[in-house]
């Protein structure tokens, strides 16, 4: 039996659910096909940073629009998603780093964006009293913050379902074809069809793209995080460092989340990723350097989430370059969480009126200029059209 619907979304992570939610708001009845369960991979296990600070220029307009949605996220999904605008801080440990941050903030201002601010030693200490004394200043975004990733996924899913979206868990897309303007999709044990297809499959996004005849040269990245036992409050904003790989945040319950870019190992046969001690050790060394008082604090848990990373580390967002009726929203390269409320809106706008109200040209699917995909995978996807 085939289930016919208005739109099929491959991927039940945050970007897929956001696309489904916004499409449902536009009056469509989308269906989400998720290989595991919603939020199993990057969406559910990331650091939850709601960050405009330090974004690549191409992402700034989207990030600024997304923050406006975060500030009233309850209106969109019926839950505050644990969002707390505690601020984000990027610390400079040397004069050169401070100069580099200052130059960057100046360029961002020249583009017309006011959110990044430079503070000196006193300003930094006012925000982070416990910081090691050698730190000289920081770039800050006071209205940025952090949210709870899985709670956010759950809120998006529940609101989407309330608006008529169907979410099928345990349904990885295995076959795709298009006939007479209708996508036919096999996933899990089901068959589905719809005129609209959205690829929001995260780390599996390139596989779906390949079924569309598009070769998008992503690699799977496994970003690692670890969390400590509860300690007395010492840190309010989310903290990063200009010269080190670090993202650091203390939750209201006292636990401290440590991430920052060292990667684990992708284990495709285990459908996930595992941590690597070398990177965790390096993150621990960074934390101890910036906050020596945490030397005796216990790490309770470490994990890695799997994500598609593009060569230029910005997403693929927009129409398929090869197929009509298909759109991409993946490849967020480890920093897509904050963008999710707006990427779904962009997809819905593209599907329903063919245009977006934000600049998405930098995210084109065909920007990597590679030879066309050879159809070697075990699927019967459509060939690239002549």
């Amino acid at each position: 039996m085939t289930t016919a619907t208005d739109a099929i979304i491959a991927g039940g992570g945050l970007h897929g659910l956001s696309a489904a939610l916004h499409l449902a708001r536009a009056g469509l009845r989308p269906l989400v096909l998720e290989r595991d369960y919603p939020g199993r991979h990057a969406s559910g296990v990331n650091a939850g940073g709601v960050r405009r600070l330090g974004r690549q220029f191409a992402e700034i307009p989207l990030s600024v629009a997304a923050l406006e949605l975060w500030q009233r996220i309850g209106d969109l999904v019926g839950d505050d998603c644990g969002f707390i605008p505690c601020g984000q801080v990027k610390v400079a440990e040397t004069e050169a780093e401070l100069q580099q941050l200052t130059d960057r903030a100046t360029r961002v201002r020249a583009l017309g964006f006011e959110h990044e601010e430079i503070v000196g030693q006193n300003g930094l200490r006012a925000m982070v009293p416990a910081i090691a004394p050698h730190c000289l200043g920081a770039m800050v975004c006071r209205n940025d913050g952090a949210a709870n990733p899985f709670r956010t996924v759950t809120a998006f899913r529940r609101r989407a379902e309330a608006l008529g979206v169907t979410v099928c868990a345990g349904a990885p897309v295995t076959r795709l074809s298009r006939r007479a303007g209708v996508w036919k999709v096999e996933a899990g044990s089901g068959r589905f069809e719809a005129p609209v297809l959205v690829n929001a499959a995260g780390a599996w996004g390139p596989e779906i793209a390949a079924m569309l005849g598009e070769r998008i040269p992503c690699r799977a990245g496994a970003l690692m995080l670890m969390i400590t036992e509860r300690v007395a409050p010492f840190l309010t904003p989310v903290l990063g460092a200009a010269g080190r790989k670090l993202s650091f945040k203390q939750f209201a319950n006292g636990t401290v989340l440590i991430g920052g870019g060292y990667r684990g190992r992708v284990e495709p046969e285990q459908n996930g990723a595992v941590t690597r001690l070398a990177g965790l050790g390096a993150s621990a060394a960074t934390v101890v350097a910036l906050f020596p008082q945490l030397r005796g604090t216990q790490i309770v848990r470490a994990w890695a989430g799997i994500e598609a990373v593009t060569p230029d580390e910005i997403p693929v967002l927009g129409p398929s370059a090869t197929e009509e009726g298909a759109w991409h929203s993946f490849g967020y390269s480890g920093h897509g969480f904050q963008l999710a409320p707006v990427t779904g809106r962009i997809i819905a706008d593209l599907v329903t009126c063919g245009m977006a109200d934000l600049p998405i040209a930098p995210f084109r699917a065909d920007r990597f200029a590679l030879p066309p995909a050879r159809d070697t995978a075990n699927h019967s996807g459509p060939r690239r059209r002549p």
Partner: protein
Amino acid sequence: MPAETEVAVIGTGPAGLAAAEVLGAAGAGVMLLDEQPAPGGQIYRGLGSATPARLRVLGKDYAAGRGLLAALDRPGVSFTGGATVWEVTRGRSVSFSVAGVARQVAARQLILATGATERPMPFPGWTLPGVMTAGAGQILLKTSGLLPPVPLVLAGSGPLLFLLAAQYLAAGQEIAALVETTPPANRFLALPHLPGALAIPRYLLKGIGLLARIRRAGIPHFRAASGLRAEGEGRVEALSFTAEGRAHRLPCAALLIHCGVVPNVQASRALNLDHAWDERQKCWRPRLDRFGRTGADGILIAGDGGGITGAEAAAHGGRLAALAALAGLGRIDTAELDRRAAPERRALERHLRARPFLDALYAPSPEFLDPPDETILCRCEEVTAGKVRDFADLGCLGPNQAKAFGRPGMGPCQGRYCGLTVASVIAARRGVPVAEVGYYRIRPPLKPVTLGELAAMDLPDPADDDDGH
């Protein structure tokens, strides 16, 4: 850079010690790691230093473990006590801390002999100070001869509860009551398995002997108790329950509880090995071949960590795993492996034939698998059974997702105390088998390690980390 060893054995209970004996006799290099300062595991804990008086209290099965300790005298066998293993990988690297210093060892063969852990026995009030597990009570007795305060009540089911009662009696401890929660139907369900149990008559004789000693001591013995509730302000003051249609309330200063043991699967779960739900033992066990080999190359599991078999069977399992490890190292060929494995396997199977009777007789009461709403399931994060049922109603599919709904299993114990119950409560609420809801994914570190310990380790450059493949 990590040290290297031919074989690393984690855990020095009967399985680990027996494995070390076989490996050591073959001349292999063996590194034995145990969290306790001395070898012996839980069952033979403190055996090496036990006084004659304590040996009398703890009984002859305990003293019988001394033969296994001889493995430590083999050249090539080294023992590291006080070693908290906090990470194992499929590449067989083992990370552990001793006295606040973290180290790593790379093994060509890795034997996990991490044994059993007590099944969580949640009921209202079980987290009150003064309530502890029978296993914890026995550890205090084995390591320091400590006795609990009186009045003392023992509650629950399973052989360990009776053994501990007999050991307490031998030590002169007063026991106010034994409150047995074994459902009466268990006896009928166990009966068809009785012939298997007769394969090893001493299991039955031991049980009968323990019960006789308890009866002779005149301890009030309540049977088929249900509706357990520990009461008290700030600490336990009484246990209330219903037995044979009557309500009871027994004052107590200490309440020792127990409802059986289950495999300790933290390490095998962290390795993401394949696990199967064992409906008879109501627990997860890693899928193993006849030697204890797992799906991961060079990683073996021996003893109760692979399914509850008891101490004697665990030693046979340890020898089988050691033989497979020797074959993996190329020290023996297939013919020798099969020849030497045959008698061990025959002995192991004889013990296994006795299990279905014991498993059926001491199957936990359903009230501990699906306890009342107000019962705390996750002690670390204080999540109640009622909350977990709410998560299930909101679409929570299993323990992993429950973490995100309300943090059960996210404290320092990583679900040791709540994993099985959270799974069975969700399964009952959803009306599906436990096998379908799964278990927590266990993340490193298996036991907490400090940022300072991790930062001080001599590790490869993280920049060398690519994304694999």
